[in-house]
């Protein structure tokens, strides 16, 4: 196994092009579990910790740029939380403080888990993922980026630079159901954003987190629509029927929160 530690984005992209099999590692909160539990033995790891260009966030008019290395703890800080409240609420549900200090939005995108908690809030905010390689950059809508459970459109020589989201005026919230009151992977989760329309996105209720949209006058039927859009399964964390049921309740409650 090799560990490659680039000091700049340019070097990182070059190394990724030379060693496409190298697995990027940022916060390591997903990658290290795979290593420690002997589930993965990549031939090389690409340590992104020293790539300053991936860090931080910035605002431009109604859009906010989140660097791939932005941690959940950073997403919870007041200024960013004011711009993206659902993402901040979602971040507060992720792991414990240690995980929030280390885990990143870029890593959550990289893993593309159906349960990734950053994904529903990003989806309702019209997230566009920016990818780069030595060949150049491209931007992909988050809903197109996610293609299946733990699968995305990232090419083997590409890295995630970050994500750009709509931070215009809106009401939004995030909720997550878990079998205990902290430190859980979502049994089912929901983000809702209300501006000119209703936008809900759910996690852990289908192969990928999914966005459901509706006109403002469809409030009454929206919980049912969201539940019907889901395609949940039974697994060790919960049953399909519970997930569908919970989605209906969560959507209703989220609407109450965002509309009154």
């Amino acid at each position: 196994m090799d560990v490659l530690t680039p000091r700049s984005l340019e070097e990182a992209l070059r190394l990724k092009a030379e060693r496409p099999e190298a697995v990027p590692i940022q916060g390591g909160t997903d990658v290290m579990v795979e290593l420690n539990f002997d589930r993965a033995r990549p031939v090389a790891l690409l340590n992104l910790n020293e790539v300053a260009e991936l860090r931080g966030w910035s605002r431009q008019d109604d859009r906010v740029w989140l660097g791939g290395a932005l941690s959940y703890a950073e997403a919870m800080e007041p200024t960013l939380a004011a711009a993206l409240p659902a993402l901040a609420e979602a971040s507060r549900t992720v792991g414990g403080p240690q995980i929030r200090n280390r885990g990143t939005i870029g890593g959550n995108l990289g893993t593309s888990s159906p349960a990734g908690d950053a994904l529903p809030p990003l989806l309702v905010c019209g997230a566009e993922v920016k990818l780069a390689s030595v060949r150049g950059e491209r931007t992909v809508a988050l809903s197109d980026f996610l293609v299946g459970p733990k699968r995305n459109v990232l090419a083997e020589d590409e890295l995630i630079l970050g994500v750009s989201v709509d931070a215009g005026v809106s009401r939004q919230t995030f909720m997550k159901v878990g079998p205990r009151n902290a430190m859980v992977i979502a049994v089912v989760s929901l983000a809702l954003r209300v501006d000119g329309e209703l936008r809900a996105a759910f996690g852990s209720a289908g192969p990928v987190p999914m966005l459901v949209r509706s006109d403002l006058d469809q409030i009454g039927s929206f919980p049912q629509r969201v539940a019907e859009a889901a395609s949940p399964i039974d697994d060790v964390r919960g049953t399909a029927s519970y997930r569908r049921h919970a989605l209906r309740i969560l959507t209703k409650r989220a609407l109450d929160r965002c509309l009154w």
Partner: protein
Amino acid sequence: MRIELHVNGEACEADVWEGESLLFALRERLGFPGSKNACEQGECGSCSVLLDGRLVCSCLVLAAQAEGHEVVTVEGLAEDGRLHRVQEAFVAAGAVQCGFCTPGLVVATADLLEHNSDPTDDEIREALSGNLCRCTGYAKIFDAVRLAGA
């Protein structure tokens, strides 16, 4: 591969296997077995250390990622042979049973009090929610945090 880092203020180096965690390197190679290996999946916090001043699970940091960085472990909290006030409080409050969770909790508590010297009960619970304890039911751990904060 060879790595160099600072642990508890001292420069250290070690040969590690590339896939090794910082936790393993600290425990097995650098002579700091205080951080504990209860799950190696980030779920229990018993391996908590400060990495450049941030509370993290050392089991989820690749040893090679710590190259050139500052690590503080439970062994680095006591100064001049005097226990850190959090350590004293854990003993006095009866917050230690088997003690396997203790190093991680002591580091997490020290980090909490560093940023918030008078936490509410909710803040204590949230700040320590990444640290599992199987023995105490947490009550005496909360007592210890309040004692150390007072």
